[in-house]
């Protein structure tokens, strides 16, 4: 079996900074001998990190597409690789940069240039989770059996994720970061974000006009307010055993030597100091990972990918499948209803699917969808035949677009896949299992890896409209 490591790229185009990492993902078969293989990503090793660039912007406020592409090309050249060497990865545009008019085009362009299965990912919840994985908080929570809260503070946003047993339990986001207020070297206000203005209104009684000269005490007052808002949001995500900070501002929280207060042309340094002070006052201990600013990009490059086990034959032309919406017709809200039997869950499937389509504004005949199955209590032959009948009936009744994608909560992909192929001859059916984290609204499905056993999958929050 070919279990060659694969190269994965992470590109983070943030509000303030843009950077890139390359990771080597080592694959391993965790099943016992004489059992169907279960390929997982065993190790993630950062093999290259780019330097940190300021996100290139054009005068009218949009992202400088050529600038970003140039960064990508020059970094690949320094790293000594070409796009074909990269098997997978993700590009993420975060914070306010995501709101720029051309964000979508940039992400698509980058993902095409960067490698074979490089997906365009996005979403504030996803960012929080990826930052927490990239910082090491998620793994720490798993290996030490603790609840760990990771707070990633960048230029534009603060992303909080609490991990339990290595999986996200709660996420929260704030549109406040180190760059809520930008200052010139003379302490004149260059820009204040919308959320920043709300803070100014609270603290100073009025918004800040561009050009106003600030004194250090006022700036500190504003930062203290933001720090306390962040801490309140953190408390709302409790309880947890450990607090970690990551992101650009976290880098500044560990500075030993003194630094110019407005070193980066913003209040990031002051905010970092305010957070340290707030934690000291509240007697809250916190941990900083080795490379705080890299947390999100490491998460994006190394942790967004999952491997699905699937032995269903899929014609080569079907994959990759990008930006498939995920529907959850059997899930009440966000969790399973444990009291329902499998047949109750299955009952009225057409109605349940229709409702999902309506709520998510989807037309199944126009595009393929991924359907998430709930946890099942019984998985015998006749039980699965009931499910495969219900699924194939609803696919036919609602004129579903090929391929028919189903995500299982248990290791039954091969069995369900065989049954669906029997009931839907001529229809490409892709059944996936072994995906641990299924939180998110969209899924990207890559081509079979060289080992011919696993399919790389990325689940993400949202996609940009085209």
């Amino acid at each position: 079996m070919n279990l060659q490591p694969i190269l994965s790229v992470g590109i983070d185009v943030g509000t303030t900074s843009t950077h890139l990492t390359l990771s080597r993902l080592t694959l391993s078969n965790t099943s016992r001998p004489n059992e169907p293989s279960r390929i997982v990503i065993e190790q993630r090793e950062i093999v290259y990190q780019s330097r940190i660039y300021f996100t290139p912007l054009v005068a009218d406020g949009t992202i400088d597409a050529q600038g970003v592409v140039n960064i990508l090309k020059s970094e690949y050249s320094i790293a000594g690789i070409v796009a074909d060497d990269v098997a997978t990865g993700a590009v993420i545009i975060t914070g306010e940069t995501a709101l720029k008019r051309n964000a979508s085009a940039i992400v698509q362009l980058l993902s095409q240039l960067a490698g074979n299965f490089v997906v365009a990912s996005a979403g504030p919840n996803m960012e929080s989770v990826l930052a927490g994985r990239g910082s090491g908080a998620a793994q720490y929570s798993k290996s030490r059996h603790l609840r760990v809260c990771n707070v990633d503070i960048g230029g534009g946003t603060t992303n909080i994720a609490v991990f339990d047993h290595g999986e996200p339990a709660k996420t929260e986001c704030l549109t406040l970061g180190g760059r809520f207020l930008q200052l010139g070297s003379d302490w004149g206000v260059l820009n204040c974000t919308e959320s920043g203005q709300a803070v100014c209104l609270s603290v100073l009684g009025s918004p800040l006009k561009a050009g106003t000269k600030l004194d250090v005490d006022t700036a500190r007052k504003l930062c203290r307010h933001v720090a306390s808002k962040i801490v309140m949001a953190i408390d709302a995500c409790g309880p947890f055993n450990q607090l970690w900070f990551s992101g650009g501002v976290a880098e500044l929280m560990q500075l030993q030597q003194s630094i110019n207060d407005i070193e980066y042309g913003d209040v990031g340094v002051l905010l970092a100091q305010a957070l340290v002070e707030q934690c000291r006052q509240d007697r809250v201990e916190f941990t900083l990972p080795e490379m705080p600013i890299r947390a999100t990009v490491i998460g994006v490059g190394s942790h967004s990918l999952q491997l699905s086990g699937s032995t269903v034959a899929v014609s080569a032309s079907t994959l990759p499948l990008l930006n498939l919406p995920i529907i959850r017709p059997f899930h009440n809200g966000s969790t399973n209803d444990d009291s329902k039997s499998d047949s109750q869950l299955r009952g009225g499937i057409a109605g349940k699917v229709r409702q999902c389509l309506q709520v998510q504004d989807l037309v199944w005949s126009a595009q393929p969808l991924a359907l998430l199955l709930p946890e099942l209590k019984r998985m015998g032959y006749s039980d699965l035949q009931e499910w495969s009948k219900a699924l194939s009936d609803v696919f036919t009744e609602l004129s579903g677009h090929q391929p028919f994608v189903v995500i299982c909560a248990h290791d039954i992909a091969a069995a369900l896949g065989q049954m669906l192929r029997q009931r839907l001859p001529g229809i490409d059916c892709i059944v996936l299992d072994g995906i641990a984290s299924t939180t998110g609204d969209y899924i990207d499905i890559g081509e079979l890896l060289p080992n011919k056993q696993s399919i790389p999958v990325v689940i993400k929050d949202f996609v940009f409209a085209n």
Partner: protein
Amino acid sequence: MGVPSEQTQRMLRDLQDSTPARIGVGRTGLRPPINAWLQFRQDHAMARDAVKSEFTQSFVDRVKRRGFPFIQSTAEDKSDYISFPPKGKATITGKLLGSCPTGCAVQIVISDGLSAQAIESNIDDVLPMIIDGLALEGITCGLPVVVRYGRVAVADQIAYELNSSLAINLIGERPGLSASDSMSAYLTYNPGPHTISSDRTVVSNIHSRGTLAVEAGAYIVQLAKKILQVKLSGVKLQQIS
């Protein structure tokens, strides 16, 4: 001894959840606590019962209703079977030639092996998956033959005499302390008197807490397809994978 902290309790629970092995059961003096001891006695008893188990009458009736031939190896009874393994490897196939199709690509044999219970618990989920799947792949399959007191090798003889390219023996595994209803599937390409152990590919630990029977069935179909394509099974197949 103090009360373990919340974190330690979580760690222990996580560790225990990660394996069916008996860890962290505690002790009383030099011995395990009574619950752990009783659980062990029960699991051991279940394993012994599984080894001694015979096909139930209702199972035999269902086999006959399906029209599957039901034969016995040359072992005379359970004790004979357990004491003399070679007896379980051979059978009288004369009657089969009249009632079974010959020349099929696959011949399925169902044997009690060392746990008839394992077959009875899983066969209704694994067998139809294999039959459906082989049909879907256009692979011909003979009539499944059920063997009482059958060992793995008995399928070689049956498939050889029915002129099949691939023998699949669905057989009860020797029970352990964590599972008494676990079965295996042995796939042997070009089976016959020349077949040795290394010629076989096995899928093991098929039970409700291991590889689910339905999933194993679908997996076996793909494995069979591959074996028939490359015309190899066992170690030789592993070497080219």
